[in-house]
């Protein structure tokens, strides 16, 4: 078993070993610190000046990464907490993403911006957010998120192969979990972009849930309770690519669809997924797609208050039960 943070770390080692054009920059990424969440541990010792600890300058970190990409190399930049990616908004949206198309021909900008996201760690309002929604619908920009099921090395290669900048979200609690761990009840398979988690031999599900990597374990907790206590069979789809919304398989026969999203309410990824699904499933849906989001609130520091704001397993379970009742 491998912790997700160790898995990503190994993927970065492998990528930098196999591709000498890859640079990595970010705050405190060098050894012995190895990044705030230790995801870059060992890289500077091994790859020298291709790995740089930077000043506290998120805008310029993203800009320098874009410059390296423009000059023919590839760059991975780490934003220490995803909340701080707001400081790099101009470089990402107005330069890196637009440059792929605003010069009248495709200009490759192989840049991956890694963003550790999410709460449930008591870090408070500016160190706990899921800012994915702020980057949805930016021309030239793709959004990905780490999941317990997708190989990080494959995802990094895929993002670079797109030739356009990508944000790669990595949930901070997910870092501490094991890869491929679904517990005893569930099995998973990865088909194309999307991981499917299901109850082996349970027959067609009563509800299909869709979520992003950081919410997988909370959603699985809800699915377990729904199965054991409510006798409702759920299946879960987890795309690694968040935007553009990829094709989500097997939904044609789903009696109900529920999208679970850790971002706060309003202009959400969940709504974007539903917008993509409605035309396809219209006429088959028996009721509106259920959207579950964190509350329209800042994220409190005190654990008991934070729990109330962020999506938890009990809320997911209640939402599914209510929809199916």
């Amino acid at each position, binding site marked *: 078993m491998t912790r997700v943070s160790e898995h990503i770390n190994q993927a970065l080692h492998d990528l930098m070993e196999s591709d000498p054009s890859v640079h990595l920059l970010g705050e405190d990424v060098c050894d012995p610190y190895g990044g705030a969440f230790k995801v870059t541990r060992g890289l500077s010792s091994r790859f020298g000046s291709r790995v*740089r600890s*930077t*000043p506290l*300058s998120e*805008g*310029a*970190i*993203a*800009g*320098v*990464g*874009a*410059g*390296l*990409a*423009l*000059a*023919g*190399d590839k*760059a991975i930049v780490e934003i220490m907490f995803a909340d701080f990616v707001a400081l790099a908004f*101009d*470089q990402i949206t*107005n*330069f890196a993403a637009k*440059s*792929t*198309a*605003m*010069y*009248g*021909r*495709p*200009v490759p900008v192989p840049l991956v911006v890694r963003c550790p996201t999410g709460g449930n760690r008591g870090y408070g309002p500016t160190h706990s957010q899921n800012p994915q929604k702020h980057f949805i619908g930016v021309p*030239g920009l*793709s959004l990905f998120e780490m999941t317990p099921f997708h190989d990080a090395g494959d995802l990094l290669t895929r993002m670079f192969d*797109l*030739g*356009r900048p990508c944000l790669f979200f990595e949930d901070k609690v997910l870092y501490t979990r094991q890869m491929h761990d679904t517990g005893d009840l569930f099995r998973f398979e990865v088909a194309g972009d999307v991981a499917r988690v299901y109850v082996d031999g349970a027959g067609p599900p009563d509800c299909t849930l869709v979520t992003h990597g950081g919410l997988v374990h909370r959603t699985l907790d809800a699915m377990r309770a729904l199965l054991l206590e409510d006798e409702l069979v759920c299946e879960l789809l987890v795309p690694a*690519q968040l935007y*553009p*919304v*990829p*094709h*989500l398989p097997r939904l044609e026969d789903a009696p109900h669809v529920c999208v679970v999203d850790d971002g706060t309410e309003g202009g959400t990824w969940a709504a974007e997924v539903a917008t*993509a*699904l409605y*035309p*396809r499933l219209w006429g088959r849906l028996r009721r509106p797609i259920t959207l579950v989001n964190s509350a329209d609130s800042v994220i409190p520091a005190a654990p008991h208050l934070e729990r109330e704001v962020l999506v938890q397993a009990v809320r997911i379970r209640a939402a599914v039960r209510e929809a199916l009742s």
Partner: protein
Amino acid sequence: MTVTAAAPPRSPRPAVADRDLRSLLLIRHFERALLRLFERGVLSGTTHTCLGQEYVPVALSALLRDDDFVFSNHRGHGHFLARHPDPHGLLAEIMGREGALCGGVGGSQHIYHQRFLSTGVQGESLPVATGVALKLAGTGALACAYIGDGTWGEGAVYEALNMASLWRVPLLVVVEHNGIAQSTPTSVQMAGTIAARAAAFGVRHHHVASADVEEIRAGLAPLLDAVRTEPSPLVVEFATHRLGPHSKGDDTRSPEEIRRVRESDWYDRYAEADPERFARIDAEQRDLVERVVAEVSARPAAQAASAPSAPSPEARP
């Protein structure tokens, strides 16, 4: 850290090579033509002419190599034409006609041609130029970024200067200090000086008061060599003047102030210094630009190029 050109700001009879005079006058007539086209309602959007500042990129062009990367800003026509004398491609881009440098998508402020790139957000290019310079370090090539005095209001400038100095990258920052940011005089938008700001980062600063291209080059050549070979960043601050409005008809300066600015223009001084040669090249470049305008105006509209391939989204009807 600050090196000021020792020579007097104005040589009485500036010597200028035919080649440089051609470049200066090509830019001058190109910019004038744009303002005329705007008055006639032929151009859309906006434009920012560099009238009065043409000598800055012309002086620099002879010191830049093909493998250098040049970053330009909203006022970038002169930067482009001094490096790539392709007025057809640039005008086609500005007019959205066939043969446009960037298919008509970028327009006046967003050009990417070979190793020349302009973009329209103030200060945004400096971190990118620092990244390119990081890649170029040790090759002898440099990244050159043109900015204005107003650009120093942007935090991106300081983040980039800090990194460029820490990492010793070959970054040449060319500041066209024309004393006015759109309509706001420098005196009310900048505390302290550019020299002191560069010094705060341990970045060499060179002040240029001259408008004479040869004199400017003589002062800059050894400094640019140091940028390439050390490598190290350098800020070159030109005291210059913008003759025209910020964009089209938005000049709020007093007539007296505009008159003072005009007196500093290189155009009349070069004309007086060598009237016959100047008149010949001036007419030649004016005619060239007129032909370019006629030819490009007659071209069909640029067709949208195919968009870069995006990952296939969820199918929508």
